[in-house]
């Protein structure tokens, strides 16, 4: 079986090549110091390639990677988090938080009622805590509702 370390090493090598290529395009100004803004990134990129080579040549044993079902679960969680990051500004705090917290709770412990209660409880509880008690600038609901 292919070792995960090998794949990671190869990916990092590609990233490092891209990084080095991008570094060659950094503009220097006439005021620059003897080293300039490119040398340190070159050193980083070079060292990454070296370390990745070590990983490709001598990979560790594989960890237990999750099965397809779990990966799907993780993908759903990721989608929820990204969606939440975009939704919390336009939609206010309470509704997106209840949805996101509820879905995550369901994924950890698949009981619909407890997940629903967790979502609503966390959303209202955290809003009260952060907005009313700690005075952070959260917006509860979409602005045009009121």
């Amino acid at each position: 079986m292919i070792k995960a370390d090998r794949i990671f090493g190869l990916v990092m090598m590609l990233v490092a090549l891209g990084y080095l290529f991008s570094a060659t395009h950094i503009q220097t100004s006439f005021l620059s110091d003897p080293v300039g803004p490119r040398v340190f990134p070159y050193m980083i990129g070079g060292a990454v390639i070296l370390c990745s080579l070590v990983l490709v040549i001598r990979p560790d044993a594989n960890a237990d990677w999750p099965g397809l079902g779990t990966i799907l679960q993780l993908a759903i969680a990721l989608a929820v988090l990204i969606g939440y990051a975009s939704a919390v500004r336009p939609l206010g705090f309470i509704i997106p938080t209840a949805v996101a917290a509820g879905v995550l709770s369901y994924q950890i412990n698949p009981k619909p009622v407890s997940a629903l209660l967790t979502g609503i409880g966390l959303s209202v509880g955290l809003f009260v805590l952060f907005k009313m008690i700690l005075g952070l600038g959260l917006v509860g609901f979409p602005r045009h509702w009121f």
Partner: protein
Amino acid sequence: MDILSNLAMGFGVALSPWTLMLAVIGCFIGTIVGALPGLGPSNGVALLIPISFSMGLDAISALVLLTSVYYGAMYGGRISSILLNIPGDEPAMMTTLDGYPMARQGRAGDALVVSGVASFVGAFLATIGLMLLAPMLSRVAYQFGPAEYFALYLLAFCTLGGVGSNNQAKSALAALIGLGIAMIGLDKTTGMPRFTFGELHLMDGIDFLVAIVGLFAVSEVFFFIESHGKNSAIGVVLDKVRIPWNDLKRSTGAMLRGTGVGFVAGILPGAGASLGSFLAYILEKGVARNPQDFGKGEVRGVAAPEAGNNAAAGGALIPMLTLGVPGSGTTAVLLALLLTLNITPGPLLFTERPEVVWGLIASLLIANVVLLIMNVPMVKIFVKVLTVPSHILLPGVTMVAFVGIYSLTGSSYDMQLMVAFGVLGYLCRKLDIPTVPIILGILLGNAMEDNLRRAMVLSDGDWTYLFSSGVSIGLWVAAIIGFMAPLFLRRFLKRPSLPEANED
């Protein structure tokens, strides 16, 4: 004496009712955070930085609050180690070895009291050590030039990589990822953008708080989904807690030895509390007349590592405050806190902002006393908290992470970035790549490059300048040894395995 008058000033700053209240709140939250499996001192402090910053706390209040959380989490880690055989955080791992067997023999209360007192001894003596050593080290640090600082940063990465991980290539790679991320944004010297790809959000660079909260807190949620929250702790019972004077007397020596070892381990850059508790346990087993009892509920096997990890937490503050080089994941997070508050650690901090340093030291002493009171007579409260199921806890933690970053930056872009760092943290843990060097790289990257370039300006581009002073040669040698030595020592320093979990 100089120290006493400084300390008096520190108490003058830290003893106001407001800061005392913050210390109590911080200790309480910290102990809870430490006790909950999956949350440790780094996550706890990381989650609270953006929130305390958005609340507009001044520098001293924020420092008092968050260092109390830090120390509290170090105390709290032992609770789940002893009761559940699950270390609440990594440094508390060694406490499971004898703590859990003690709990199974019905002596959970004794183990909790002894380890609480051991935590106090370790942390209190280490804070006094910090008070004595830090000003001396800061005077030495005055003589450091850019070449020495560059070597020092290298030393931190090397020892962190050498000691703290199983594979040097992986920890080096982690440090490099961090350094590479630190390069994103405008170059300070020339004002030219680097690696921004025309994206306006990236002009200021990536906020290290976004990275820290993502790597340390958001990544946890993915883990719990994968494991379906198996590590929850429902049904823990604890009988009446009494103070076992005999056990305390028997383990005094162990506490003091553990404190000494842990303190030294904490000062070494990159080593930190996990190494402190590990070495303290090994030493105690080595000097004991009954090494065969260790691992079966020997009270000294609880006292030594617990004193060791708390002493290391205090010792780790020394390089962080005097040199700006953190010795562990949590001190890296505390460094992030100082930088957020516009306080630059280093030798100048001791002369220019003495009220910050001594206020911090005084508040650490206060926090310790508060924690002793909370963790010995009131330990039952925290045992109750352990029963919060993970399907409420983890979504809660994730939402707190979002609230923190959102109220700090107000930007969806930064929140998405935080999620991306969460994914990175998950992948890293799956690949056994340590995440602390990534944080350290992001935090120190710009300073490291800056010192390199200033050194080259001083020497007019002569690279041998980096090895031109005795101090810098010493640091380079130490860095190489710190990186390579564990390759040979690893065979001798194998971790003992965890005790068998509850089979019923």
